[in-house]
């Protein structure tokens, strides 16, 4: 079964799937998200571009396969909530929101500028479609617990997705939230952990005990899956399974991703948590990405 084909149902748009019926594949969405992110990175000449390239496939699945939302009404009550706990991944989420039609592509050139709606670290008050202010790491799971409880109070069938990272697992508050979500049996909460083994001072695995992550979440009472986060079909299947699972428990999709995925010379750059990229390298990166997508040599 392949999920690379878009969902098509004649009335799906009314149910909050605005791109249902589109003939753009998830693979192309991911490519375009990466391209938007690279163009934003070029504006500043530096940034969390490796994380954006790494998480692009997960975001493509989120915004073009899993989430219900209305691009012209970001506060629509029936929407699935998508929380970006890792505020510095904002460049990636902006790219997805642009591709989703929530933000105009023309704002790419304002990324990180004064008065821009696209600050370097994501904040709810600045950007349509940004549900929470992230960046002080370790907040996304706890807030998701509260929102999931709040949705249950309203007998809403919406899901809360919350994206956090392996580095963020260092924060004790994540585990308070993990225990709380299991205690309240929040089957409307879907956690996504981006495991890319990089954080500010180096590899996450060299900084704090992380594994076995799958077993840990399972032991904490979560419905647990671990997938290659750069395998679009696998991510889509995992999200589908997370939503469909008939267990009264929160769900986690642990996504192993490759930093800077899709731009080989950045993938292999050591310590790529915060990349400084030479001016001429941005176009090289975009050319490589274009070539990889089209299957032609650059």
């Amino acid at each position, binding site marked *: 079964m392949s999920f690379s084909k878009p969902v098509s149902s004649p009335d799906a748009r009314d149910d909050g799937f605005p791109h249902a019926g589109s003939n753009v594949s998830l693979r192309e969405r991911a490519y375009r998200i990466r391209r938007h992110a690279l163009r934003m990175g070029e504006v500043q000449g530096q940034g969390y571009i490796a994380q954006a390239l790494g998480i692009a496939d997960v975001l493509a699945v989120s915004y073009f396969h899993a989430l219900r939302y209305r691009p012209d009404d970001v506060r629509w009550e029936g929407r699935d909530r998508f929380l970006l706990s890792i505020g510095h991944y904002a460049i990636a989420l902006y790219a997805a929101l642009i591709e989703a039609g929530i933000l105009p592509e023309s704002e790419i050139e304002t990324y990180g500028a004064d008065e821009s709606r696209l600050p370097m670290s994501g904040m709810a008050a600045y950007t349509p479609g940004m549900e929470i*202010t992230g960046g002080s790491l370790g907040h996304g799971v*706890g807030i*998701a617990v509260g929102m999931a409880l*709040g949705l249950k*109070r309203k007998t809403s069938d919406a899901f809360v997705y919350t994206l956090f990272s392996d580095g963020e697992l260092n924060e004790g508050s994540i585990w*308070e939230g993990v*225990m709380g979500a299991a205690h309240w049996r929040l089957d409307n909460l879907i956690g996504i952990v981006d495991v890319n083994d990089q954080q500010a001072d180096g590899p996450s695995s060299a900084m704090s005990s992380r594994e076995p992550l799958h077993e840990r979440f399972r032991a904490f009472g979560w419905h647990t899956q671990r997938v290659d986060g750069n395998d679009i079909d696998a991510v889509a299947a995992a999200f589908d399974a997370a939503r469909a699972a008939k267990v009264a428990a929160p769900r986690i999709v642990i996504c192993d991703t490759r930093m800077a995925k899709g731009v080989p010379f950045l993938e292999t750059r050591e310590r790529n948590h915060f990349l400084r990229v030479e001016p001429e390298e941005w176009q090289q990166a975009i050319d490589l990405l274009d070539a990889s997508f089209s299957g032609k040599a650059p």
Partner: protein
Amino acid sequence: MSTAPTQAAKPRLTTSAMIASIAAPGQRTAPAPFGNALVELAKTRPEIVGLTADLAKYTDLHIFAKACPERFYQMGMAEQLLMSAAAGLAREGALPFVTTYAVFAARRAYDFICMAIAEERLNVKIVCALPGLTSGYGPSHQATEDIAIFRGMPNLTIVDPADAHEIAQATPAIAAHDGPVYMRLLRGNVPLILDEYGYTFELGTAKTIRTGNDVLVISTGLATMRALQAAEMLEADRIGVEVLHAATIKPLDLATILAAAGKSGRLVVVAENHTVVGGLGEAVAAGMLRAGIAPRFRQIGLPDAFLAAGALPTLHDRYGISAEAMARQIRAWL
């Protein structure tokens, strides 16, 4: 019980624990004014929910939990989750009242209150027991600097009620305010005093409780109760003490405070159940200086130190916030 004859006449003062009342023997009290007010309010405000971190019983939230069990969330001993979950519930339209001890809110959960609640101006009411020096357990439970910590947080309204009468009125008032609030809580059997003065609470307004020509005491929280008692003592010495109660510490009603402080000739004293660093005293001092008002000025408050464990009457007297200690200090300054 038998004790040595020489000690028999002395009352035995025990360590004032978490459930200790600050009421003096024989003082009129009302039980659990916050918990009862919240239950009453919840009858007409279905969006109200209550959350705590293993301290419902010690913050009077157990009354709400019993009355509205489906609206009560026990989050366990996890203050970071407590605050971020409250933020999430507020995002989904609930009106969370969150309780814990002031030390844990101010010290342990600060980032979560700041970024998940205050930065987004979410409608969360944080109500904390054991403010200032109201526990004999020592620094782990004595939130002597909570106001100093929270005053620097934008968007946050800070309220320090003086007694049960005021807590009962402040609870619906902070619910009616759209935005995050930190309220210091006196719990259990809470003294009743302001009803005798015909006082009504208004968020953001400082009010004159009694008048006097020699000293102006600007006070908040339980220090107002003590200041009123001290004023009675000083009255006997023909010292006239005005008490201006500023229950809302932020935003501070500087207009009322400056008008009172600007009346020439009176010693101005700020009294608070809080360290002299960063609380009401320094807020008033800065406000006066900015306005060019420079009366003789003194502070009654807790010292800039980690305080001792013990019995509250002993500690309040030692650190200067008992009525007798306040009267002593004011006499010495005149």
